[in-house]
C-alpha cells in the first residue's frame, strides 16, 4: 500500500477534523471545567434570610457587645454593635472569631464524670445534678467557688448558692478589677466601682495598663482613642503609655515612657511627689504621712533609680498632667493593689475624682439575690495566698467560667489537688476541665442568657444582657441556670428559679445605680505603698497579654494563629523579647534558644531582639503553653503565667516583682 503526498495530507487533515467533530473532546473539556469547581469535598454555602442579632460574647475578659450575623438562623459571623456604647461597632480579635467556636471540636460535648487519670464517662445532666447535690450535701460548708466571670450576674447565683451552703469562700480570678477594688474599696476605704472616663479626657496616662490591647473594656477604650484621634485631623487628646516595653497600646499612643516592671508604683508616687511639689493637695487624714513617705522614699532621684525614668522626664510628665484640662491616669500592673492605689492618689492629687474626663466611682449595682456577696466582697478573698497557706482545701470546689489550672499564676495547678472534688463549668476542653472530677459543659455565649454588669473600667453604669441567638448544638447549658436548678434539687431557696429572671431583676437594679458615688473620704493605703521601693536588681520579667493569643481563660481561637507574628511564635517555640543590650550582657543573639526560669518553673523560648524593650527586662507573652484545647494552641510556646512570682503585699497578692533568669540552651 502506497501513500502519496495527496493521500498523506488527506489522512492528516481528515483525521484531525474527524476527531474534532465528535463530541468526545468537547464534552470531556466541558465536564472537566465543571468538575474542577464542584468537588464533593468543597463545602457549599447556606442560603436563607440574613439577620444581625445583638448579643454579648464573654469569651474575652471584658466581654464584647456585638451582633451575630446569621443566615437561615445559623450564625456565621460577628460584627460590632454600633448602637452599643461598649462596642460602637468595634470588636476584639477573640470575639471576631466567636462563631466558629460554636462548632469547635474542642467544646465539651456533655456532662462527664472522671473515672480515672484522664478518663471520663458521659453522664446525663440529671445524674450530674444528683451527684453534685450528694457531694455538696456531704461537704457541708466546706465548699468554694472560683469564678473567672469578671462582669456577670452569674456570680450572684453562685455566691448565693455558696452562702446557702454556709460558706463564704468565693474566689475571683486575679484581674485589674481585683487590684483596683482591693485598693479603692479595701485599702483606701472608698465606695463604688472605679472607672475611667477616657473618652472625656484630654490627657490619658496609661501607667502599665495595656488599655488599647487587653486591659479593661478594651474595645470601648479603643473607641475613645479613635474618637480623640480623628483621621486627618489634629488629635483632641494626648495618650501616653508608661511601661517596660513597647506593646500594642504604646504603638498608637502619642508617647512612651519606659518604666521598669518593678517600678510602676514608684513611678506613680514620683509623679505624686512632683504634683505635691507643685502645690497639689488632697483632703485626707493620711496626706501628711503621704508627704513624708514620698520625701523619704520616692524623691525623683530615688524614683529614677527604681523606675529608669529620669528626674527630668518625670517632672515633664507631671507638668503635662498639671497643664492638661482633663487628665486621667489609668494605673494597673501585675494585679497590684499598690499600683492601683498609687494611680488613684495621682488622680486625686490632680483633682480628677468624679469629674468629666477623670476617674469615677460608679455606684454599685445592688445584688438581686439576697444572700449573694456584693461586688467588693467578692474580690476580697485571695486565692494564691490561700492556696499557698493551705487555707484553700474545700471538699467541693466549683469552678465557674475560669481556667485556673492554666491561668492562675504559680498556684493554678495545685487547685485540683487541694480540693477533694472539683467541678468545672467549661465551654471548652480546657486545662481545668482536664483535671476536674465533674465536667459540666457551659453553653457558648450565643447559646445562653448572660449579662455584662459594669465591665471594669467603664465610666458610666453599663448593663448589657443577652439571650440565646441559637439553640445549643450540644448537650450544654448555662452554668448559672444549672446552679439555680441545683439549689432547687437541694431544697435551697435562692429567690429565683430562672436565670433569665435574675437578669431582668439585675437590669432594674442597674437602672437605679446612676451617676457617681457622691461623697468620698478616703485613706491612702500607705502601708501598701511603703514597700514598693524594692527591686530585685536582676533581670525582670514583663509578661504581657494580647487578646489574639488568648487570655487567662481562653486559648488561641481557630482564626487567630495567622494573626500571631513569626516573631512571636515559630512552630512550637515562642519568642521572648529582649533589648540588644540585654542580649549582649547575657551572651544571646536573635534566635538563641533560651530557658527562662522563675520560682522553680522553666519555660523555653527563642530570643527576639527588640529595641522596644527596656534593658534588663525580658518581655514574654502570656497566653501560650496550653496543655489542653486544640491544635491552635496546644503545645505551642510556654505558659508564662507559671513564671509570674506571686508576692503577698498588704493589699493582697500581686506579681509586680518578677525576677527571672535567662539561660542559653
Amino acid at each position, binding site marked *: *500500500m*502506497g*501513500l*502519496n*503526498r495527496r493521500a*498523506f495530507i488527506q489522512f492528516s487533515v481528515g483525521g484531525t477534523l474527524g476527531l474534532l467533530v465528535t463530541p468526545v473532546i468537547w464534552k470531556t*473539556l466541558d465536564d*472537566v*471545567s465543571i*468538575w*474542577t469547581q464542584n468537588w464533593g469535598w468543597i463545602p457549599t454555602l447556606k442560603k436563607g434570610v440574613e439577620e444581625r442579632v445583638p448579643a454579648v460574647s464573654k469569651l474575652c475578659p471584658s466581654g464584647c457587645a456585638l451582633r451575630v450575623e446569621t443566615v437561615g438562623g445559623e450564625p456565621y459571623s460577628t460584627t460590632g454593635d454600633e448602637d452599643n456604647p461598649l462596642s460602637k461597632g468595634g470588636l476584639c480579635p477573640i470575639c471576631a472569631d466567636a462563631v466558629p467556636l460554636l462548632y469547635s471540636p474542642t467544646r465539651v460535648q456533655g456532662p462527664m464524670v472522671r473515672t480515672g487519670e484522664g478518663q471520663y464517662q458521659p453522664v446525663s445532666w440529671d445524674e450530674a445534678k444528683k451527684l453534685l447535690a450528694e457531694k455538696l450535701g456531704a461537704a457541708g460548708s466546706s465548699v468554694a467557688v472560683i469564678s473567672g466571670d469578671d462582669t456577670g450576674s452569674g456570680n450572684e447565683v453562685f455566691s448565693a448558692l455558696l452562702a446557702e451552703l454556709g460558706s463564704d469562700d468565693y474566689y475571683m480570678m486575679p484581674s485589674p478589677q481585683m487590684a483596683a477594688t482591693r485598693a479603692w474599696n479595701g485599702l483606701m476605704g472608698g465606695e463604688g466601682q472605679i472607672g475611667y472616663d477616657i473618652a472625656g479626657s484630654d490627657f490619658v496616662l496609661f501607667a502599665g495598663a495595656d488599655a488599647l490591647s487587653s486591659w479593661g473594656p478594651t474595645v470601648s477604650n479603643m473607641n475613645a482613642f479613635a474618637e480623640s484621634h480623628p483621621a486627618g485631623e489634629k488629635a483632641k487628646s494626648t495618650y501616653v503609655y508608661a511601661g517596660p516595653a513597647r506593646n500594642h497600646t504604646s504603638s498608637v499612643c502619642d508617647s512612651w515612657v519606659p518604666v521598669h516592671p518593678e517600678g510602676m508604683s514608684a513611678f506613680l508616687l514620683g509623679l505624686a511627689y512632683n504634683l505635691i511639689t507643685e502645690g497639689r493637695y488632697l483632703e485626707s487624714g493620711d496626706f501628711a504621712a503621704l508627704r513624708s513617705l514620698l520625701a523619704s522614699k520616692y524623691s525623683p532621684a530615688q524614683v529614677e533609680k527604681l523606675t529608669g525614668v529620669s528626674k527630668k522626664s518625670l517632672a515633664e510628665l507631671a507638668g503635662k498632667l498639671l497643664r492638661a484640662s482633663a487628665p486621667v491616669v489609668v494605673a494597673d500592673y501585675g494585679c497590684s493593689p499598690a499600683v492601683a492605689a498609687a494611680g488613684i492618689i495621682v488622680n486625686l492629687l490632680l483633682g480628677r475624682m468624679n469629674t468629666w474626663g477623670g476617674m469615677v466611682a460608679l455606684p454599685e449595682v445592688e445584688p438581686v439575690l439576697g444572700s449573694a456577696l456584693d461586688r467588693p466582697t467578692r474580690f476580697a478573698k485571695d486565692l494564691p495566698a490561700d492556696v499557698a497557706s493551705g487555707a484553700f482545701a474545700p471538699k467541693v470546689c466549683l469552678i465557674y467560667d475560669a481556667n485556673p489550672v492554666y491561668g492562675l499564676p504559680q498556684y493554678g495547678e495545685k487547685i485540683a489537688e487541694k480540693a477533694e472534688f472539683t467541678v468545672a463549668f467549661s465551654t471548652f476542653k480546657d486545662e481545668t476541665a482536664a483535671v476536674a472530677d465533674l465536667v459540666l459543659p457551659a453553653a457558648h455565649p450565643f447559646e445562653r442568657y448572660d449579662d455584662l454588669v459594669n465591665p471594669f473600667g467603664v465610666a458610666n453604669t453599663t448593663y448589657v444582657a443577652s439571650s440565646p441567638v441559637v439553640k445549643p448544638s450540644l448537650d450544654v447549658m448555662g452554668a448559672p441556670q444549672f446552679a439555680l436548678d441545683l439549689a432547687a434539687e437541694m431544697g435551697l431557696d435562692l429567690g429565683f428559679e430562672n436565670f433569665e429572671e435574675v437578669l431582668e431583676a439585675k437590669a432594674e437594679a442597674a437602672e437605679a445605680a446612676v451617676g457617681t458615688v457622691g461623697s468620698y473620704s478616703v485613706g491612702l493605703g500607705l502601708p501598701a505603698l511603703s514597700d514598693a521601693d524594692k527591686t530585685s536588681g536582676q533581670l525582670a520579667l514583663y509578661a504581657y497579654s494580647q487578646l489574639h493569643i488568648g487570655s487567662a481563660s481562653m486559648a488561641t481561637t481557630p482564626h487567630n494563629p495567622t494573626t500571631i507574628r513569626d516573631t512571636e511564635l515559630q512552630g512550637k517555640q515562642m519568642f521572648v523579647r529582649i533589648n540588644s543590650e540585654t542580649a549582649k550582657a547575657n551572651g544571646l543573639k536573635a534566635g538563641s534558644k533560651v530557658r527562662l526560669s522563675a520560682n522553680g518553673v522553666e519555660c523555653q523560648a527563642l530570643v527576639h531582639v527588640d529595641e522596644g524593650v527596656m534593658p534588663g527586662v525580658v518581655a514574654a507573652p502570656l497566653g501560650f503553653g496550653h496543655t489542653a484545647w486544640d491544635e491552635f494552641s496546644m503545645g505551642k510556646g510556654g505558659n508564662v503565667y507559671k513564671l509570674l512570682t506571686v508576692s503577698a503585699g498588704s493589699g493582697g497578692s500581686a506579681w509586680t516583682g518578677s525576677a527571672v533568669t535567662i539561660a542559653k540552651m
Partner: protein
Amino acid sequence: MDSKLFPEGATRCSFGQYLLWLGFISAMLLWGVYASFLIFYNGIGVTAMDNYFGFALWITFDLAVIALGAGAFFSGFLKYILKIKQLEKIINLTVIVGFICYSGAMLILTMDIGQPGRAWFGYWHPNVHSMLTEVIFCITCYCTVLIIEFVPLILEQKQLNRNKFIHALAHNMHVHMALFAGIGTFLSTFHQGSLGGMYGVLIGRPYAYRDGFFIWPWTFFLFVLSAVASGPVFTVLICTIMEKVTGKKLVEYKVKALMGKIAGSMLCLYLFFKYLDTWAWATDVLPRMGFTFDQMFYGLIYGKWLFWSELIVCGLVPAIMLIVPAFRNRPWMLYTAALLNCTGIVINRYVFTVQTLALPVMPFDKWYTYAPNWSEYATSLMIVAYGLLVLTLSYRYLPVFPQERELNS
C-alpha cells in the same frame, strides 16, 4: 536479543547491561512518579513553594531546559532554512533533545499549575495581553511540531520501516520537514521571547523589570538570544556524553566545533545586548524604582557572585573560547566552554525566577529564602530520567547518527 531492532550496521551493548541501565533509570523515574502522585493527590502544598516563591525550582527547571532545548529549533532553522548541510549529522539529536526538553517541561507544568484540569483554559479564555498566554500557545504548538519532527525518525526504525505505509509516511514527513522547521522556528522564537517578556513586564519586580530601553520588554530578545546561544552547545554536550558512555564516535568533531562556533557567535551577540541591558537597568530602571544595584543582592544564595558568574565566568569566558578557533578546536576547551555557557544560562533563568521574587519590594519586608524539597527534586529528576530513557531508546533502536557507521568502522 533485541539486535534485530538495532539501526542498520550498528552494534549496541549487551542486553544485560542495557537492562541494568534501564533499571537505574526506572528507579529514578519511579521515585519521581511517586512524588508526582503525591503532588496530584495532596496538592502542590507538598512542595516547598509558597506565596512568595510561587515560581521556584520547577519554573527554573522549565526555563532552563527550554533554553537548552533551543538547539532543536535553531539547528533546524540553520539546516532547513539556511541550508547549512553539515548540521544534518547532528540534527536528529537536536530534535530528540528538543523533544525531551519541551515535553519534559510540559509535564512539569501540568504539575506546577494548581488546576491541571484547567490547563486548556489558556486556549479557551485567552488573555491576549499576557506573555504567559503566548507561552502556553507556542510551547504546546511547538511541542506538537517537535513530535512531528520526531515521528519520522521513529518510523525509520529498521523493522518499522519495512512496512510500506510507514515507509511512505516517513518519507512524506521528511519532504515537508522544512515547513515544520520553519513553523518551529517561528513558534520557538516567540515563546523563548515571551518567557523573557514574562519577567520583563513585571512592573512590581525591580530585579526583572525592564522598560524604556530600545524596545519593551527587552528581556524578550535577551531570552531568545541566550537560548540560541546555549542550545547548540547543549546538544554537543549531550552528544559527547553519549560518546563517552557508549565508547563510540557518533558525530565528527568538525560538526561539534561548528555548533560551538554558531553558539559562540550568538553568545557574543547576546552578551553585547545583555551588558547594555544590565547597564541601563542598574543606572536607569532601578533608580526610577527607588532602588540601587547593590540592593538587588543579599547574602550568599542571592549574592553578587551569581551575577558575576553569569556575566563573566559563564558568559564572556565561554564566548571567547567558542569564537576563537584555536580554543574551539581543542575538544576539552570546547566542552568546558559549552559547560560554562549552559551554566550561565541556567544561572540567568534561576535568578530571573527566584531572585526576582526573593527581593523585598516593600521597604519593610525582608528577604526570604527558598530551598526546594524532595518532591520538587524527585519530579525534576523524573524528567531527567525520562530524558535519559528517550535518549537510550532512541540511540539503541533508531538511526539517530548518520555518521555512526562510518566513524566507527
